[in-house]
């Protein structure tokens, strides 16, 4: 049985940066670092002066690191009680409460092998990024493919890092699906993920994937899993993480 997450503990914000116009990266240093597996998430808790609390779950985007820090990608939601705090009020040095790691299904380590198929949209790339960074950090040669949907080139989280990882030509392949913009690279795809894109993407892997992780809004996960299943992906290997309505 998986261990329970840590009790609530203080974590200090050690870095903040912009990932896209609506998404910021926050790095947290938990007071008592804990081990986690790529794909897991943490719960954050904020407390108002009168004791009122709000909590949210965020996937960890960083690979496990020696210093125990954790990177989260927090998207600003129009009506977001917690995301508006992070985008408007939070500064480096502030402390929040954090509990983790959570989740034992949507996880992958380089020891698990592959080929590995990762499908994400928007900030849904976060847990997939943890797996990609883990794979690169371990020097793994496991074939891996990320199909990442975004509105446009500037809405792609971790875009430059992903392009740099792809340029290593160590078995990591990258396909962007841009729904609102013309593509800039031959291998990318205009429009939403459909069966044709799925078939072309699967052909980039040397053999059928043994792990498939899909993360994004529910509507995205439904559409993307359907497209890949129609293109021949074995539905039994698909693991999903969904958010929003």
């Amino acid at each position: 049985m998986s261990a329970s997450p840590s009790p609530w503990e203080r974590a200090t914000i050690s870095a903040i940066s912009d990932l896209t116009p609506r998404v910021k990266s926050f790095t947290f240093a938990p007071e008592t670092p804990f081990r986690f597996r790529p794909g897991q998430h943490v719960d954050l808790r904020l407390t108002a002066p009168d004791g009122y609390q709000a909590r949210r779950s965020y996937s960890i985007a960083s690979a496990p690191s020696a210093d125990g820090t954790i990177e989260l990608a927090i998207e600003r939601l129009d009506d977001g009680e917690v995301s508006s705090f992070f985008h408007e009020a939070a500064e480096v040095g502030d402390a929040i409460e954090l509990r983790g790691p959570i989740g034992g299904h949507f996880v992958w380590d380089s020891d698990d092998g592959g080929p590995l198929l990762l499908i994400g949209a928007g900030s849904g790339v976060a847990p997939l990024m943890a797996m990609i960074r883990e794979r690169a950090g371990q020097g793994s040669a496991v074939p891996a493919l990320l199909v990442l949907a975004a509105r446009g080139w500037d809405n792609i989280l971790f875009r430059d890092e992903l392009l740099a990882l792809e340029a290593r030509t160590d078995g990591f392949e990258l396909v962007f699906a841009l729904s609102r913009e013309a593509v800039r690279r031959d291998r990318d795809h205009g429009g939403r993920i459909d069966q044709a894109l799925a078939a072309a993407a699967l052909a980039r892997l040397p053999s059928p994937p043994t792990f498939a992780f899909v993360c994004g809004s529910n509507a995205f996960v439904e559409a993307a899993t359907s497209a890949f299943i129609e293109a021949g992906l074995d539905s039994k290997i698909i693991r999903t993480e969904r958010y929003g309505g």
Partner: protein
Amino acid sequence: MATRGFIGRRTPEDHAARTPPGQALTTDFPVLSAGPTPRIKLEDWKFTLKVGPRPVFAWDWKTFDALPKTAFTRDIHCVTTWSKLDTKWEGVTIDDLLAAAGMEAATPFVLAHGFDGYSTNVPTADLAGSKAMIATTYDGKPLTPDHGGPARLLVPHLYLWKSAKWVSGLQFTEVDTAGFWELRGYHMVGDPWREQRYHDDP
């Protein structure tokens, strides 16, 4: 520990009493499941009651759909911290299901199974007394596949991962047997009012 700069948006007073600790109200109906949505044809649908490994009663869709239906309007609570008030369901209560099978609760524990291989454990006491149903409609319409259709278990007073989607049967077990999420660190009971999210929560 107060968070500098955080004020928060409180639940309106009349709803505060209905929102368990650590939860926030939503008017959406978010979907959470561990895998792709299975598409189950009604002609392939079957629901089985088991005692231990032994099947004791089974329904196809036609015979199941003919069982007496009950309407529920309930607040529901997901462990990912959203709660939704006044959700409207219709289905067959577990009491009516057992009556139709001519049996009583066989053991103190139940393991619910889904067509997708999912499972989750629920104390029998939490299923009896019109507290739970096999739901076939939501908001007056047939339950859609992403919300667990054709039929899901609904145990609205426990965190929603106990309400197995695409339910294919209930199995009475002698011992409390962890299901899919319970094996992955989640609580064996999952009462939102006691905030029983993870294995070690009291």
